[in-house]
């Protein structure tokens, strides 16, 4: 099925003049996916009404010209070293996170709903964390099984009775959304520990503006560039008592060999704060200091990009050299803010996630969840376990504490041997697994060797919470680059797209 590219030819072209290039136009040979929701075209092959202008402008590009621009965008990423590292050898191989130039639009009205839904969700998650480390009302009233919550690997008993400065637990949340075949956004999971990817959102936008300046002049897209300042302000707003004015905020990275080092550096650069490694910090009298060329300097807020386990060898893993001895003591003494707080992994647990809708009703006076979860089977529950084992071929099975697409079984594309192996693992440790029906993720035209073709995407918006909550308009659209694949993680060879929250309408 051919896709309409708009019937009226205007004098407009992306260069400001008609391109002399011949050959097919960008969307001439685009064929919709047989069952997925397409983010640009309706089932009739016409653009959705909110993105007519975008499709019209892009659709006037010839395939060859588009490919030239794609090459120049790629070069920009290479030259700027916009990379993530792959743990292959000692020096670390840096790879470009593949970027696709066809943006993924979201209409303003739909975004407004998502934004409200995400705010509602993060409010409930923060209340849940506060509750779980204090009164545990939600467990006492049996909304969530106690052993499930307290048995989570992310639950930190050291946090019981402690309230972080400002009362915020998850300062930065990346909630993964997908759009099902009917076009509804549903939540796949919440990343409440150290979600990454936001640097690519900002870098993608910067490159898009260089490559398609005219598109931005004609189509109003919400700005994403405020993110670093919003983040810095939010972090400063929850600085501990006695902090300097302004508070000293730092980004703590495990070091230059970490896969997300580019992002750590990017955020520090754009927030205008120091990027530090564990050995740059020390704790004295329960206060955290930075080692500078002119002596120690007090640190008030740490945006830490390493997991709880590695934060403090005195409190957690003694073998870790990445963290800061005594940091947790300083935290418990109320002298430093950690973002995200210690112990947020309990809400990041994939077996706790199915209860978020209940948390919303429980903590927000019976409010109905604006965003729905993907139906989830928790293998810790006997009925769910049986269903999962009986229907492995139809389900996606995930280990509850893994991320990056690791520890996963994609039922429909699995072999009998893989299913047998997974069944054994699940029986062995049911608490460690959940299962979800396969959702046919929506598609967006994505450049491939054969021209634009539908590829599945998800969406990770970023939600920042300090004294108030702010949602980055858009987020990271991740694309599965392999035909038919539903796995979009960068560590699994996925790419990304610019997400356009359109103004107006």
């Amino acid at each position, binding site marked *: 099925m051919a896709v309409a590219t708009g019937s009226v030819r205007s004098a407009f072209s992306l260069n400001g003049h008609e391109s002399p290039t011949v050959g097919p136009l960008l969307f001439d040979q685009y064929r919709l996916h047989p069952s997925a929701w397409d983010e640009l075209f309706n089932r009739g092959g016409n653009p959705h009404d909110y993105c007519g202008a975008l499709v019209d402008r892009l659709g006037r590009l010839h395939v060859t010209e588009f490919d030239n621009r794609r090459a120049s965008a790629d070069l920009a990423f290479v030259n700027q070293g916009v990379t993530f590292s792959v743990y292959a050898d000692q020096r670390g191989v840096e790879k470009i996170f593949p970027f696709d130039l066809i943006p993924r639009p979201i209409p303003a009205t739909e975004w407004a709903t998502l934004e409200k839904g995400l705010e509602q969700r993060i409010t409930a998650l923060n209340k849940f964390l506060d509750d779980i480390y204090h009164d545990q009302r939600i467990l006492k009233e049996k909304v969530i099984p106690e052993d499930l919550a307290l048995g989570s690997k992310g639950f930190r008993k050291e946090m019981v009775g402690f309230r972080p400065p400002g009362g915020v637990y998850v300062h930065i949340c990346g909630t993964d959304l997908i759009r099902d075949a009917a076009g509804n956004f549903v939540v796949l999971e919440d990343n409440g520990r150290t979600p990454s990817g936001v640097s690519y959102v900002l870098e993608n936008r910067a490159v898009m503006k260089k490559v398609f300046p005219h598109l931005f002049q004609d189509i109003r897209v919400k700005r994403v560039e405020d993110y670093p300042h919003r983040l810095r302000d939010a972090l400063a707003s929850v600085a501990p*008592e006695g902090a300097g004015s302004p508070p000293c905020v730092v980004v703590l990275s495990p070091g230059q060999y970490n896969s997300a080092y580019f992002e750590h550096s990017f955020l520090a650069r754009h927030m205008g704060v120091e990027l530090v490694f564990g050995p740059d910090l020390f704790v004295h009298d329960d206060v955290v200091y930075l080692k500078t*060329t002119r002596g120690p300097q007090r640190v008030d807020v740490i945006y830490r990009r390493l997991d709880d386990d590695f934060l403090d060898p005195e409190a957690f893993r003694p073998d870790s050299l990445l963290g800061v001895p005594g940091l947790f003591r300083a935290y418990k003494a109320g002298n430093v803010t950690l973002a995200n707080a210690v112990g947020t992994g309990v809400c990041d647990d994939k077996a706790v996630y199915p209860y978020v809708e209940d948390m919303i009703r429980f903590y927000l006076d019976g409010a109905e969840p604006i965003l729905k979860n993907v139906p989830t089977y928790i293998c810790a529950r006997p009925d769910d376990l049986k269903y999962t084992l009986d229907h492995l071929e139809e389900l996606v099975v995930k280990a509850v504490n893994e991320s990056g697409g690791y520890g996963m079984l994609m039922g429909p594309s699995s072999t009998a041997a893989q299913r047998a192996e997974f069944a054994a693992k699940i029986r062995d440790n049911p608490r460690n697994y959940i299962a979800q029906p396969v959702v046919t993720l929506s598609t967006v035209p994505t450049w491939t060797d054969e021209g634009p073709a539908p590829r599945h995407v998800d969406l990770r918006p970023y939600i920042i919470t300090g004294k108030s909550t702010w949602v980055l308009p858009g987020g990271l659209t991740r694309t599965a680059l392999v035909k038919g694949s539903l796995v979009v993680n960068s560590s699994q060879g996925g790419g990304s797209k610019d997400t356009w929250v359109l103004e107006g309408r």
Partner: protein
Amino acid sequence: MISRVAEHCFWLARYLERAENVARVLDVNHTLLLDFHVPAEQQWKPILIITGLHDYPHEPTAENVQEYMTWDEKNPFSITSSMYWARENARIIREVISGEMWERINYYHLWLKADAREVYDTNRHEFYAQVKRINHLVHGIADATMSHGEAWEFFKLGTYLERASQTARIMDVKYHTLLPKVEDVGTPVDNAHWLAILMSCSGYEPFHKKPKSVPMEPGAAVAEFLLYDAEFPRSIRRCVWECEGAAEAAAGNPVGREPTAAERQIRELLDWFDSRTSADIMRDGLHEALTHIVDSVIKIGNAVHASFFAAEVKPPPRPRAAMSQSQS
């Protein structure tokens, strides 16, 4: 600034400077003595010796030595190694250097991995010229786009310290280029060597614009120029003097401040220079003097490390918010 970050600034500059100087020496040596029949061993072995490599396992032919000093990743002094480490230091402190600086450094890192080999194979001189330009470009960009604050002072400190050492090492080529007989001093070959050394330090024109204190001895005049000239940015005393300024600025300048170990060590080398003349040095042995300078630079490097990068941390006695805890 963070001690570790200061150290990366310092080493970024040192590696860039080192790559440039290796390219200089290789380039000049490549075209040196085309008119004179000097055995290859005599011409190329000194290059290895001055970088401190006494156990080079292969025949020191022109191609072997150039290959080793340009491309060998296992050779820590090769151009590729220096550029790799320069870029790695830059990558770690991208939040400190300017974006434009980073992009240039990254660009040349990619260039060395891709197109550079072809330039090297087809136009050797152009290749070396390009490598030299990298450092010039980065310094120009840094000057124009980076804040001239503390990070900048460490960048300068690294540049001048490395350059002082490199000029000394380049001059020492003369000692290791085995002149068979004392009578050869002042011969055309001897003079050509000195000229080559001058060119390796980019000092040909500035030198010839200067009135000479020893006009009849080109060797002594070149040595004086490269050791003492106050205006030439690659003369060793000038480099050490620049180090002094950068170290003072990096340490901050409140009145009555105790000088850091780094400043004291730099001062010691400056005093050494000022307590003798170029003629004294030539009389007592240039090689010995250059060895003293190279050793002093190493001492200064260690003192810089101790003063700024690994300074003993003395926490303030009464932290603000922790007071109530520590009193209870």
